[in-house]
């Protein structure tokens, strides 16, 4: 069987397994997987920048937080917002923020780009932390989960864990397919070209700046999608969700999973959360469990040193050694 087929089947099988999970898993674990899938969307959106456009953004948590606050502030306080308008609105807010900051940050490159994206995220952090707008440092509640209705018919009741689970799963798969589609297009190939050699693309007549901006805005909007879902899941937003630690964590997920692939970030999100749970598990590590950040830190260092291609790289290595070239092409 051709490798592309193998992968498609593997992914389909994974999606089906995930879809069936709520039928057997306990509530807590179903919610845990929801969280992981939301993070997977978040990580995929960042991978569009890091892995495909060559833009190392260290402020991606800004979108995650902004969308959550958008839902909290735009929606009615004591009634449920309709998902049909509140989700697009939250994503639009993020896209707008990405567009405006993108005009600035995309003028910089390298280390500058990393720092400037970080600084804009910090600025937004202080907007929510220091002003009364979103409840200040204590955060703000979203009392009712949004409704998903078609006319008078409720398509799903998001208060039910399984319904919300399936909605998130559908959206995760949709984002995966959307990004696969985008990356397969001329636009997507141009982005990868920009990553490899920006000057060459410029010389070839591609509107490099506009392409980068488009990628930046799309990543911001999809990051917003994940932030919106997280806010719906927990019903609570706080300035910490846009802190730089959050930006660092999602970057870790992308690299751990394998940047420059679409399934990598999904794998990375799962692995990251599982590791965190494992390191802080008292039954396994006893008194050392409270120093779990030490283990996490050492692990991150090891990944940075020895696993630059992430888990996806490992899979490829063991999966099909002699078809590396072909793999390059497919993922490119």
């Amino acid at each position, binding site marked *: 069987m051709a490798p592309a087929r193998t992968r498609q089947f593997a992914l389909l099988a994974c999606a089906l397994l995930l879809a069936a999970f709520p039928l057997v898993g*306990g*509530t*807590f*674990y179903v*919610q845990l997987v929801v*969280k992981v899938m939301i993070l997977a969307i978040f990580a995929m959106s960042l991978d569009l920048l890091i892995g495909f456009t060559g833009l190392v953004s260290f402020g991606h948590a800004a979108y995650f937080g902004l969308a959550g606050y958008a839902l909290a502030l735009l929606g009615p306080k004591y009634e449920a917002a309709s998902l049909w308008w509140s989700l697009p609105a939250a994503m639009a807010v993020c896209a707008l923020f990405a567009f405006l900051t993108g005009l600035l940050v995309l003028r910089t490159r390298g280390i500058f780009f990393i720092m400037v994206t970080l600084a804009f995220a910090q600025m937004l952090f*202080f907007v929510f*932390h*220091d002003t009364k707008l979103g*409840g*200040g*440092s*204590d*955060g703000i*509640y979203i009392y009712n989960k949004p409704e998903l209705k078609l006319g008078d018919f409720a398509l799903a009741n998001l208060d039910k864990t399984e319904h919300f689970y399936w909605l998130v799963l559908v959206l995760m798969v949709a984002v995966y397919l959307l990004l696969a589609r985008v990356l397969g297009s001329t636009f997507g190939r141009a982005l990868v070209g920009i990553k490899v050699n920006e000057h060459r693309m410029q010389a070839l007549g591609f509107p490099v700046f506009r392409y980068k901006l488009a990628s930046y805005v799309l990543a911001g909007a999809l990051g917003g999608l994940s932030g919106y879902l997280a806010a719906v*899941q*927990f*019903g*609570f937003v*706080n*300035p*910490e*969700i846009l*802190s730089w*630690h*959050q930006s660092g964590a999602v970057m870790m997920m992308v690299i751990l999973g394998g940047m420059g692939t679409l399934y990598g970030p999904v794998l990375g999100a799962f692995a990251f959360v599982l590791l965190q749970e494992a390191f*802080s598990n*008292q*039954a396994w590590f*006893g008194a050392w*469990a*409270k*120093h*779990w*950040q030490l283990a996490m830190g050492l692990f991150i260092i090891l990944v940075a040193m020895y696993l630059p291609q992430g888990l996806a790289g490992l899979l490829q290595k063991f999966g099909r050694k002699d078809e590396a070239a072909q793999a390059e092409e497919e993922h490119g």
Partner: protein
Amino acid sequence: MSSNEKGFDRREFLKSTAAVAGATAVGTLAPLGAAMAQAGKIKVGLMLPYTGTYAALGVAITNGFKLAVEERGGKLGGREIEYIVVDDESNPAKAPENANKLVQRDKVDVVIGTVHSGVAMGMAKVIRETGTLWINPNAGADEVTGPLCAPNIFRTSFSNWQTTHALGKVLKAKGHKNAVFITWKYAAGEQMMQGFKEGFEKEGGKLIKELYTPFPQVEFQALLTEIASIKPDAVVSFFAGGGAAKFLKDYAAAGLKGKIPLYGSGFLTDGVLEAVGDAAEGVETTLHYADSLNTKKDNAFRLAYAKTYKLQPDVYAVQGYDAGQLLAAGLDAVKGNISNKAGMIKAMESAKIDSPRGAWTLSKAHNPVQDMYLRKVVGKQNLVQGVAWKALADPAKGCKA
């Protein structure tokens, strides 16, 4: 509350605890397998910071709570206690999820936590949705026993409002007619400012300026200069931990100490006196605990704590200890049958807690009605000067329960 819905039988319980004792003797692993054998235990979830800025506070609260349980022979209401610990990292972004871990995954009977107010707000969300019993041993966010109040939510510490409200009276008595309030720009600081303002204005005083520095910045020089130019009768402030230490030192170094008297919420001078040396000498604060209360209860507590943990207890340890006492009051009343939640809540509501800080009861919104001490820094201690406000109750604004 899904576990422990079955009736409770004393003989069953004895058998099962014997089994647990055997199981733990054999091995400490197997968290899942042990769950069945431990059906007889009360599951207490400790959601506290064990890493990061507030790690020391999380440990003190844990120690205090466990001391209260140990003093009762390791049992509350006749049942043994099993602890399930989650490090909340003082990170509000993870708060709902961490609370969920205890409530949904571990199915704890009661949650004890936490230090950081933002985390407490995230917990409150989960707690209110699931109806789990929650005893908050520190986080002072006014909302917890205000708009968010609920029958299953208890607090054994303070509301931010409480810690500064009595200062109004204090300043008035000292003849100060106006004051400046300085704190970090975040919710706890603003709530303490509000508590002071209400108390001071009631006494006819005037708060002439509110000064804020971005959280958690510790560069105070600009605002200290501002204070010097305003020349108020008194300065009232709230900072905590490293920020408090820095502020006290800077205040003294800027020459303001001795010229404009400094007051504060008690956290300004708690846990930092070793670090600041004489810079804090003479600073007066209000809090629900102090050094050298010299009551029988407090002396016994301090001795026991020091013996057990080779550490001196602080206000956080007291709050943790009282969380244990409050839970004990509830469980004793229902003889360990935690499924009788209504009975438990009723007993806890009407409990009179014999605390090292002095006896206290709960308000309708489940916040302590407690004496606020006026303390003065002398040497390396917060010595009690008297009671600034007898039985101060939080107004519980917005509590409809």
